[in-house]
């Protein structure tokens, strides 16, 4: 993908040293100051040696505790580390699949993995589509390499492996490796490797192809590809071999040296993954897997490059159309809500009015009753007063009569008295 493919460009000869041969160095220096991002995804059963292999590959101790076997589902654990070697700063992220292969029902095991990979692509896409974006110092979290750990059964791939790899092959660069390879005998190993490769081919699984188009790396990549999948052994412990300390695993029956090519393919894996193809892995992720994701995602959202009349569509127009559609719907919903709201308010108002009326009526009724009672009481009071008056009158009259009668009586007695004299 060179710049010089198309036109018939004139070649100019320089008569002296200009100095633009420093351009690659300028570019590289820019990257070193920003640091590189590299993200590895390790897929494999619990206890197959993923963490140990990472420790061995990067010659360090990443802190992690071994996972238990009773996880309810597969979950992905991502850890980021910053490694520095001479003047290169590497931002390494290792993503682990915790609980892979432990459940009884493994139908959905691949789903969390696919979702995680897609989520990273999505985050990058979002950043790219922003209006104000900062791509040059964006921390790239997309998975650049997926190491698939195959259990060393010696027979063939498990169906879980095939299914998972098939789902992942269009999204990420898959490098299959045989884990704990010191449990397989040499003759069995060869058969096992060929069986695995033929199964991958017959099931149409696309694993990462080491690039052979560039002269500098073509040879080494070609020779290494023959040994796929790499049978690796990981170890962080050192054992004294001869007069040197080397990373190895000590068994009662012997020592397996990690960096001995006769014992395992660890050195090959390290060469391929880090020393030769790291940049190519990053590039493939960006130009192939990410572009595929982006294309699918945008087509899903309804964007096209050309409309039915095959006139070029601009992303702007489609976007505008979508936006207007969306706003229209939003507006419609808003109107509906508003109408409903008004209706409800009216209903409530009517109800309240009714209640008010009722209350008023009751109040009036009560008032009337109260008035009536009051009147009754007053009438009774008047009656009582009249009676009282009558009584008083009668009493007065009676008293008068009595006093009159007394007077008359006393007059009579007086008269009688006089007569007697």
């Amino acid at each position, binding site marked *: *993908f*060179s*710049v*010089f493919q*198309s*036109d018939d*460009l*004139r*070649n*100019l*000869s*320089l*008569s*002296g*040293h*200009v100095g*633009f*041969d420093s*351009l*690659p160095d300028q*570019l*590289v220096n820019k*990257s*070193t*100051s920003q640091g*590189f991002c590299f993200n590895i995804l390790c897929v494999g059963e619990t206890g197959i040696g993923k963490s140990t292999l990472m420790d061995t*590959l*990067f*010659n*360090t*101790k*990443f802190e992690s505790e071994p996972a238990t076997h009773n996880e309810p589902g597969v979950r992905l654990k991502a850890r980021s580390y*910053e*490694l*520095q*070697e*001479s*003047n*290169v700063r*590497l931002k390494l992220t290792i993503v682990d699949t915790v609980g892979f292969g432990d459940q009884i029902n493994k139908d959905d095991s691949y789903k969390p993995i696919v979702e995680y990979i897609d989520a990273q692509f999505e985050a990058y896409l979002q950043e790219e589509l922003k209006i104000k974006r900062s791509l040059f110092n964006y921390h790239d979290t997309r998975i650049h390499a997926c190491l698939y750990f195959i259990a060393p059964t010696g027979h063939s791939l498990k169906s879980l492996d095939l299914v998972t790899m098939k789902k992942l092959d269009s999204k990420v660069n898959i490098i299959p490796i045989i884990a704990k390879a010191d449990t397989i005998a040499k003759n069995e190993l060869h058969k096992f490797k060929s069986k695995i490769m033929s199964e991958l081919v017959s099931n149409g699984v696309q694993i990462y192809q080491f690039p052979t188009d*560039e002269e500098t*790396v073509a040879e080494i990549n070609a020779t290494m590809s023959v040994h796929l999948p790499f049978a690796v052994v990981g170890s962080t412990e050192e054992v004294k071999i001869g007069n040197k300390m080397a990373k190895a695993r000590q068994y009662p029956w012997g020592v397996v040296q990690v960096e001995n090519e006769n014992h395992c393919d660890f050195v090959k894996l*390290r*060469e391929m993954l*880090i020393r*030769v*193809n*790291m*940049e*190519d892995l990053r590039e493939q992720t960006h*130009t192939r897997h990410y*572009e595929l994701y*982006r*294309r699918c995602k945008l*087509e899903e959202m309804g*964007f*096209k*490059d050309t409309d039915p009349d095959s006139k070029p569509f*601009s*992303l702007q127009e489609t976007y505008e159309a979508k936006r207007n559609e969306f706003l229209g719907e939003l507006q419609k919903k808003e109107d509906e809500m508003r109408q409903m709201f008004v209706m409800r308010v009216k209903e409530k108002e009517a109800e309240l009015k009714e209640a008010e009326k009722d209350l008023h009526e009751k109040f009036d009724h009560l008032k009337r009753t109260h008035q009536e009672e009051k009147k009754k009481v007053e009438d009774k009071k008047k009656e009582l007063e009249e009676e009282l008056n009558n009584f008083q009158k009668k009493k007065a009259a009676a008293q008068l009569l009595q006093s009159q009668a007394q007077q008359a009586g006393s007059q009579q007695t007086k008269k009688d008295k006089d007569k007697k004299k």
Partner: protein
Amino acid sequence: CQLFGYVGIEAVLDQMKIKTMKTGFEFNIMVVGQSGLGKSTMVNTLFKSKVSRKASQPGQEERIPKTVQLQSITHVIQEKGVKMKLTVTDTPGFGDQINNENCWEPIIKYINEQYERYLHEEILITRKRKIPDTRIHACVYFIPPTGHWLRPLDLEFMQRLSKIVNVVPVIAKADTLTLEERAEFKQRIQEDLKTHAISMYPQEDFDQDPDDRALNDRIREKIPFAVVGAD
């Protein structure tokens, strides 16, 4: 994290270098200035080859166009395995008319057109693996060596263009100034640029870290560069 031994991460630098050398580089430079200031000679001297064929032969009339034209020439040059596609855009007619109003407009239009083209390619659904980059990376502005200060045309142009492209001002035909005149001229130009808030390349807002800033400050002291070209 501490590395207990050699891993080989630094090999990625070489990998990157090889990849960039294979893809090649594109560089688009634009030269702006009145005719006769030595733009083509300058470009030829810079790249040590006959990039622009200018009529330096006597007897051939060089017609000054009535409006500003933009002419691009593309060459492929190679040095020590590094291939570069160099495009030089010339602007004959700039500042040559009697009435030079809006003579920067065709230039601004051209620059924006290139940005538009790139954007269009970038937002396609199926994008090209390597989008052809025709955007102007640097605009070299030639200031006539009056020795006084910047003319209104210079200020207008640089003000407008420094917002959309990297402008590198140079004093053309600087061999017509003595060293003291040159120092004073530079001083006055720098003050002028500062008063009008024109930001040249390297722009101060893009300084990434203290080392970068120190390096760029030294460069900024020398702006505008007083140059002499010779074929």
